[in-house]
């Protein structure tokens, strides 16, 4: 085979095999029925094309040559038989279509659900290394090509193969010599069309790439449209766009051109084949080679025309199948990602005042070691011992970190961007695992606590608030799903979110769309604080929770924050040092090390880095 110039989709058999295991698994019996139905339907259509010839040779021609009264009874009998065959063909077609729906849609649902639930089990690291757009396209583009392949290409392929084989056998039975002629012309036809299809395929790949680039550019520019206006940058933005748009139009033209000419090429080559068969067949018949009758040639011609259609279909779909398989492969790659490992055995259980485990919801919680049954009261004592950590193996971003937070203490982390503040909190809730050292929660090594239970005991309020498309009520309830409406209102009141929520058009029932875009940053933050309040965790992590809020709003938010911090162990990361002044311990981080620690008063007296930061003689970045 000739080497292609551009990257082109290739048929990936191992992915295909795996896909079939999804289809075959639950639907083996149905698929068998579908296969039988397709067989029937294809045979009925083959019988149809053979029938015409038989009709002419065995019924019409004798009638024509016969003199005297003609009887159409035998003809009607034959037509009745054909009616039965056709009817069964039509029913078989319907049945196979109908069964294929459940198989295809069911398989897609299985794969979709598997993708999503597997994605939920992946570690944060996985999301760090991939762009959101790439992940999204697994669910949109890749799943969509897969849908087309499963619902259209695969059934078409099956039916085409059956038809081709049936017709091929019928051809062989009629004349093996002419079959060879057809085979030769088919080979020629396929080699031409596959070349065109491959060209089209590689241009389609190129088109997808430029389309992605252009659409990305459009998105960025439209998002910054107001800045473009302010800087009267419109002309420049148009010029840059034109370059991309031209390139895209070029690639799109080539991709569509080759795809468009595929059908006329294949269709018309089949006429050429028709003529060649007629001439060769006529020559054979007249020179007595191969004992061919003229009637046989006519029926052979009909067969050779019928075989082209399914072959064309197979050829034109090969490309889309190859592209769909490339997408499917990416989907399987997601499914093959290593899940977050959890070897923890300690779980959170409700206990009575007397520290006895209970199924009732009580105010007290305890850690229960599932192996020993030992109960440890949940207090919110968190201690890091000589912790080292790096996102990549040989580059430590945290070195020798030791922090102890007594229950109810407020620990502040201060330092420049990249000093490792957020990283510390990411280790406490085990988004990442330590390189060295230990973290203990109420005296238990957090590696021995089940991740779900560990995270349930930690509340998090982040700088970037993420809300979900649901009502305000549901967004706050996200903190604890079994919270009553009353509890949600209470949390909103405590966090000061209540005021603005009651001014929303539908109050708590207001629907938030696209990440709560209709709300201001401060309002979003208040909802996220209420959300953490509803969860009512003993330990809280506040990561720059107020930094993008203006001072006016911050005052409002601060009251909510104070309510939230009441009686909990709190780790707070803040840019504005005024907000952490009353912390029990302030840790100043630099390059992954703690360089100073103490209360605000002590650190100010020390006149070290904290003092410099606070008095503004050194700038935080």
């Amino acid at each position, binding site marked *: 085979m000739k080497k292609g110039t551009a990257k082109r989709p290739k048929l990936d058999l191992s992915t295909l095999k795996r896909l079939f295991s999804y289809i075959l698994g639950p639907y083996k019996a149905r698929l068998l029925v579908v296969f039988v139905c397709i067989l029937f339907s294809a045979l009925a259509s083959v019988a149809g094309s053979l029938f015409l010839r038989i009709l002419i040779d065995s019924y019409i021609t004798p009638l*024509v040559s016969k003199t005297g009264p003609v009887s159409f009874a035998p003809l009607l009998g034959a037509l009745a038989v054909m009616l039965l065959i056709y009817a069964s063909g039509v029913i078989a077609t319907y049945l196979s279509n109908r069964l294929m729906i459940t198989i295809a849609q069911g398989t897609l649902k299985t794969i979709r659900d598997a993708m999503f639930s597997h994605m939920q089990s992946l570690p*944060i690291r996985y999301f760090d290394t991939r762009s959101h757009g790439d992940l999204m396209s697994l669910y949109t583009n890749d799943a969509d090509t897969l849908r087309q392949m499963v619902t259209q290409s695969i059934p078409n392929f099956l039916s085409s193969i059956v038809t081709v084989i049936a017709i091929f056998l019928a051809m062989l039975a009629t004349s093996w010599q002419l079959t060879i002629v057809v085979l030769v012309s088919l080979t020629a036809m396929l080699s031409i069309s596959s070349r065109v299809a491959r060209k089209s395929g590689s241009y389609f790949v190129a088109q997808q790439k430029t389309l992605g680039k252009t*659409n990305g550019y459009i998105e960025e520019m439209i998002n910054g449209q107001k800045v473009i206006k302010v800087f009267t940058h419109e002309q420049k933005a148009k010029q840059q766009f034109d370059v991309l748009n031209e390139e895209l139009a070029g690639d799109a033209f080539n991709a569509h*051109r080759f795809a468009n000419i595929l059908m006329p090429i294949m269709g018309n080559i089949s006429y050429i084949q028709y003529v060649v068969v007629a001439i060769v067949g006529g020559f054979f018949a007249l020179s007595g080679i191969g004992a061919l009758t003229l009637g046989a040639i006519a029926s052979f011609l009909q067969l050779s025309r019928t075989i082209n259609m399914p072959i064309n279909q197979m050829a034109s779909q090969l490309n889309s199948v190859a592209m769909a398989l490339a997408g499917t492969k990416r989907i399987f790659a997601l499914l093959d990602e290593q899940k977050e490992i959890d070897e923890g055995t300690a779980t959170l259980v409700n206990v009575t005042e007397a520290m006895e485990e209970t199924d009732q919801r009580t105010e007290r919680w305890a850690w229960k070691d599932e192996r020993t049954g030992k109960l440890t009261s949940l207090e919110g004592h968190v201690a890091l011992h000589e912790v080292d950590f790096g996102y990549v193996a040989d580059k430590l971003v945290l070195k020798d970190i030791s922090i102890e937070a007594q229950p109810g203490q407020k620990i502040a982390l201060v330092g420049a961007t990249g000093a490792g503040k957020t990283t510390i909190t990411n280790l406490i*809730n085990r988004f990442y695992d330590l390189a060295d050292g230990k973290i203990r929660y109420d005296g238990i090594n957090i590696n021995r606590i089940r991740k779900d239970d560990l995270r349930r005991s930690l509340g998090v309020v982040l700088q970037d608030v993420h809300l979900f498309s649901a009502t305000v009520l549901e967004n706050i309830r996200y903190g604890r799903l079994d919270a009553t409406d009353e509890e949600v209102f209470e949390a909103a009141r405590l966090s000061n979110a209540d005021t603005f929520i009651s001014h929303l058009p539908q109050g708590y029932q207001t629907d938030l769309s696209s*990440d709560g875009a209709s709300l201001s940053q401060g309002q979003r933050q208040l909802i996220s604080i209420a959300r953490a309040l509803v969860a009512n965790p003993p330990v809280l992590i506040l990561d720059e929770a107020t930094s993008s809020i203006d001072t006016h709003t911050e005052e409002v938010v601060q009251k909510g924050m104070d309510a939230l911090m009441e009686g909990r162990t709190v780790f707070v990361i803040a840019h504005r040092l005024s907000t952490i002044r009353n912390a029990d311990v302030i840790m100043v981080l630099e390059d992954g090390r703690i360089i100073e620690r103490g209360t605000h008063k002590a650190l100010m007296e020390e006149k070290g880095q904290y003092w410099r930061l606070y008095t503004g003689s050194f700038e935080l*970045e």
Partner: protein
Amino acid sequence: MLKHLRKQVGENKRPTFLTILFVVLEVVMDVTIPFLMAFLLDRGIDAGNLSEIIKWGALLLFCASIALLFGVLAGHFAARASTGFAKNVRRGLYYAVQDFSFANIDRFSTSSLVTRLTTDVTNVQHAYQMLTRIAVRSPVMLVFSFFMAFSINNTLSLVYLVAIPLLAVGLFFLIRAAYPIFTRVFKTYDKLNTVVQENIRAVRVVKSFVREQYEIKKFGSVSQEIFQDFSKAEKIVAFNSPLMQGTMYLCILAISYLGARLIVSSSMTTGQLMSFITYTSQILMSLMMLSMVFVMLTISKASAQRIEEVLGEKLDLVEQASPKTFMKDGSVTFEHVDFSYTKTEDKRCLFDVNLDIPSGCTVGILGPTGSAKTSLVQLIPRLYDVDNGSVKVGGEDVRSYSLESLRKEVGMVLQKNVLFSGTIEENLRWGNEDASEEELGWACRIAQAESFINSFPLGYKTYLEQDGSNLSGGQKQRLCIARALLKRPKILILDDSTSAVDTKTDSKIREALKTELKETTKLIIAQRISSVMDSDLIIMLDDGKIQAMGTHEELLATCPRYNHMFERQMRKEEQA
């Protein structure tokens, strides 16, 4: 209908016309070929005459080659026309958005504009290709095949009187039943995508609250909905091919029987019978293709309309016939200015504002959230037009300048600011394309950005990700200020542009602005009184009205509210 969209065809009229021409010619050949096949069968094969076979075969080959040529040309021009059209539409949309005013942009949301420029354009491109090829091919094929069949034998074509209505009515009911379900499915797909997108973005929230199972359930129910709706719709569509097959088979049987009678009575040949059947299948196929075209076009109609809306959007900021390009100085005057975003009286957000700011002044603007601080300053570079009254800069109404020269002289740092993917230097040069390295350094020094830029290994050549996501909030704000400074504007507006910058740096920026841009009128919207204390003029806004105006000392003496605010903020800072 779709007036503006149709205009975008432009230079693609010629390839469009050629596509239609070649499609029609191709159809003519496609219809002729079965006719020739009948001759080949009757006079050649059935008669056992090799020279006749060769004669008709050669003619057939000739016709097939011409059909091939027409087909290839039709495909070529169809690709040219549809991709060219898509290019024009995309450009038309993009250019239209570039010319949009802020009010126009507000009317569509950003994300809906993006969809219109991406997905909708692709849909319209496919629709256009379908219109020029299949939507032309099918009816022409239908008419020609019908004509040919009729000319072979008009009695036999009576079969169509039954067959065509049967198929047409069947297809009509299928489409009518399935179409609404499909549109619903596409909506549900959007819902599914939203769930996925939110979960990817908020993965840390989901994990922190241990909501994986909850989200899986949420996704599962949407996924189930798609499964059910899709299955329901496809169960209807499943009748499609049996319907087509059934009609075709019934036709064949009827034609066979009637044809046999005609052949026996010598008014038809067997070759003609075969051709007749070929035409029958062509007619029925065309009918089905037409129904498909109809469905696809209705689907893309929505896209076409959304594009039309953007192209037909009326611009609400219009330049005067011969606009001024020179601005005398940086003085700003507001005369009885009323303003609303919707141009409706009851949603007004500025009421009878009067201001007189001499050139070179520093003005602080204070006020609670929602007091229309941003609305006020946005009128100066004419991002919006006033409802009543007038805004003057350099002594002339802003509407008398060309937008380009007005905005060149008015540097504005927006509250919601954006940096673009590219190097720091490229981003800065938005302010002035030809800025020298010294000028870049000058602007960055004033904006207090120089030290952090120099701390990057690549300095000014550091690559910024989209929206500067690899910078901190404070760094982004300082770059945005530097970018605006490079314009060397006569008027500089900072709309809460230092909210993420610490107090010390904030005051350094103000200090540098004062000494380096003496001639420039500076308007600063701020949250902290300390940021505007030393301004020449402080404006207190509340509910769209100027509540008080004066220097710090004046306001302390005359405005109790200012006094109160100042004391509270000072107390807090002393505590700090």
